[in-house]
């Protein structure tokens, strides 16, 4: 019923209503000022930046091995640990990995795919079998894009928000087992491209990293204007679906905390799983349909040669900053509080009194949430900041797709939908 019930027994306070109004007003004003007074021609047509040089391969491998060992420790807790909430595997999955990948990827760029332990294992297997890790036994069909990962992310959202007894070991073992089978066996059969297509964590991280200031270039790391990075990103097929699932699952998490939802579900004779599954599906449908319609509404104004069916995919990058804003606003305090608890508990993964990192005796520092105003301010800035960056990205994308005489009219539907997402995000944080 409530996210991560059991590990997070504290939630953020509702956003004060004045904050909702201020946020909505700022989002609207900035949107329309940009629409009417924004630059008339593309500003970021090329992917250029300052070259920072290469990361030496041995350094990359040191990090790969460290990440692999970290996952191995979590796996030990999953397989052999106690079925109690002090088992660090719950915080590892729901806070460190699921929430932690957002700030990590938004700042450092697509590092997840470089350090992904599934890739490290697949590289090892390929080396033993003397095969190229890129090659599978069966070729991966074209156009798969990230659709399998979008399905995987829906499954994760179901686990996080609906699945009964999600903070018990048998349930988590089942889901982790499914993830390993689908992603790792798939990678052996279809080659490493399957990991980019199907690993929900990697696909989420890669999507978030599209607007990061650090990007891989032809000769090493590139320091790049995030707006330029986002404007020149070529999203794979299925990106619109993936973004819709992520935005909808975060929105549903908040929606499930409204008094109306709690009272309705608790008065009903239907089990929560039906309400939860239905609510999650309806939310995904709302986001997917509104986003698809707003993208397709651009069709009458597009330049020659822009395929109509590609419009949702091409516009999806504009929603990525909104998505990051939603994730930060909803889950940053969870990451900070539960992240600390998880790192403390990982020192003793099996509950046997170990102290691997010397952190077992430390306490969780909760001073960040002692005062509600800074948290509320952070949430407001995350949501509105995400919106502002999102509409700038949408404006830049629109200039590439729309005929030069239709750049204002063609942008209106997408702008309105993005304003709705932002206002909905603020209202859901107000949590009526």
């Amino acid at each position: 019923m409530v996210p991560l019930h059991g590990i997070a027994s504290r939630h953020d306070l509702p956003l004060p209503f004045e904050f909702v109004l201020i946020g909505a007003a700022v989002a609207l004003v900035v949107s329309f000022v940009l629409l009417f007074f924004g630059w008339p021609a593309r500003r970021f047509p090329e992917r250029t930046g300052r070259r920072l040089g290469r990361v030496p391969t041995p350094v990359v491998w040191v990090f790969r091995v460290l990440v692999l060992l970290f996952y191995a420790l979590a796996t030990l807790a999953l397989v052999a640990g106690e079925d109690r909430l002090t088992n660090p595997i719950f915080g590892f999955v729901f806070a460190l990995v699921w929430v932690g990948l957002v700030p990590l990827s938004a700042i450092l760029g697509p590092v997840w795919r470089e350090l992904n332990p599934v890739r490290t294992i697949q590289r090892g297997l390929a080396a033993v079998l003397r095969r190229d890790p890129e090659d599978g036994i069966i070729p991966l069909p074209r156009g798969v894009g990230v659709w399998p990962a979008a399905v995987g992310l829906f499954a994760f959202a179901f686990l996080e928000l609906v699945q009964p007894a999600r903070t018990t070991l048998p349930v988590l073992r089942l889901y982790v087992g499914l993830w390993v089978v689908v992603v790792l066996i798939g990678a052996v059969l279809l080659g490493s491209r399957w990991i980019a297509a199907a690993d929900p964590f990697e696909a989420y991280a890669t999507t978030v990293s599209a607007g990061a200031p650090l990007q891989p270039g032809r000769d090493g790391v590139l320091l790049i204007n995030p707006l330029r990075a986002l404007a020149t990103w070529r999203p794979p097929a299925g990106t619109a679906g993936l973004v819709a699932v992520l935005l909808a699952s975060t929105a549903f998490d908040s929606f499930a905390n409204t008094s109306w939802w709690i009272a309705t579900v608790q008065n009903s004779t239907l089990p929560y799983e039906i309400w939860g599954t239905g609510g999650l599906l309806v939310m995904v449908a709302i986001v997917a349909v509104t986003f698809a319609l707003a993208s397709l509404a651009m069709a009458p104004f597009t330049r020659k040669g822009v395929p109509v069916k590609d419009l949702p995919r091409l516009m999806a990058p504009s929603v990525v900053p909104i998505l990051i804003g939603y994730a930060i606003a909803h889950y940053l305090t969870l990451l900070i509080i539960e992240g600390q608890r998880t790192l403390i508990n990982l020192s003793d993964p099996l509950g046997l009194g170990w102290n691997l990192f010397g952190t077992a005796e430390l306490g969780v520092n909760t001073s960040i949430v002692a005062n509600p105003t800074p948290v509320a301010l952070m949430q407001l800035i995350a949501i509105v900041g995400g919106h502002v960056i999102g509409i700038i990205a949408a404006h830049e994308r629109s200039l590439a797709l729309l005929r030069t005489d239709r750049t204002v009219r063609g942008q209106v539907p997408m702008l309105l939908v993005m304003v709705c997402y932002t206002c909905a995000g603020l209202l859901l944080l107000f949590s009526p």
Partner: protein
Amino acid sequence: MKAYLRPVLLGAAVLAMALTGCSATPSTPETTGPTTSTTTTATSSATSTDLGTVVQVRLADGKVTPNGEKMDLKVGDVLTLVINSDHDDEVHVHGIDVEIEVTAGQEVTRTVTLDQAGSFEVESHEPQKVILVLNVR
């Protein structure tokens, strides 16, 4: 502010209110309803300041009363739960992590002090339902 921007800003503000107002409408009756009733329950049944806000909780026929209502409180506030149940259960106050054992047919009274800010649930375990959401500022 430049004069020509004024109508734009005004329009935007009006639109913002219209938009937020529209989207908020469906849930407004539910929000005001329970909040008022909680307040009345609280004030009418508050007997002494030591008990702080008193809330009557009833667990019966698989339903809980109050039914997931939100309560606004301040850090340091005292809350007293008076619980009646038709079955053995456990009421869990999250955040301050208080477990209250409940026996069928016996009234249990428990007073707690809310010493940290945040949003916490008070829930029953059999079945698992949210009784109150405490918004402690």
